[in-house]
């Protein structure tokens, strides 16, 4: 199925772009909280699109079901981990970068 192949390639490439962008944002953004935002792209949009892309080239339905379950799990664990990090950072008084502050 050439159509499925093309759609899968597009999804995988877009997912990879999101993953790389998350990494670049992690380096470029100014403080802890904004970096959590950047890292979040990697495991929401990046991982989601890559798994969708893989879903289109699964050889059997069992593999497909497993991929869907992995997507569901990542949608639960990713934000939960980000939340715990941000909650802990705020509790420990990590300052919030505001527009105009120097980079940290």
């Amino acid at each position: 199925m050439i159509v499925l192949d093309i759609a899968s390639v597009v999804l995988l490439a877009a997912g990879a772009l999101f993953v790389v962008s998350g990494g670049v944002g992690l380096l470029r953004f100014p403080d802890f909280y904004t970096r959590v935002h950047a890292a979040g792209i990697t495991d929401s949009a990046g991982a989601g699109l890559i798994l969708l892309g893989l879903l289109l080239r699964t050889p059997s339905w069992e593999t497909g079901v497993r991929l869907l379950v992995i997507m569901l799990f990542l949608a639960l664990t990713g934000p939960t981990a980000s939340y715990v990090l941000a909650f802990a950072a705020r509790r420990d008084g990590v300052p919030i970068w505001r527009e105009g502050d120097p980079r940290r």
Partner: protein
Amino acid sequence: MAPLFALFWVLLSGHFTTLLLVLGALSVALVCLLARRAGLTASAGASIPHALRLPRYLLWIGKEVLVSAVAVVRRVWSPRPDLRPAVAATPAAGMSELAQVTYANSITYTPGTLSLDVDEDQVHVHSLVPADLEALRAGAMLRRVHRLDQGRRAGR
């Protein structure tokens, strides 16, 4: 909880070698131990009707994630990123515990907004630009979480 986890392991693994079954038993034991230490109970308000409403919500949140991910990616690559972080509370009153978790996690899942803390009746949110925070406070996501939580009786 343990039989449920065991069934889940077998369904996902599909292998019945001694090694994998032993690993599965150990995983189930570990998860049960952690769940007990964290004070979790088997049911947190999830039900069959709730599960049936879930796909529609997931499709919507998927769309939201893509749209806002594109916005954040543009900031990542722009020579001078337009970052004006804002922190504020967004109302989240009258929700079940499950709905609160869904809402706070959906906020974090959507790039550009990040839950910092969950109170009885509000969620503290950090956002990359004030506009994302305003959109959240306008309540589209909150309404959908309410609908997911209690079906058509939403909006009380």
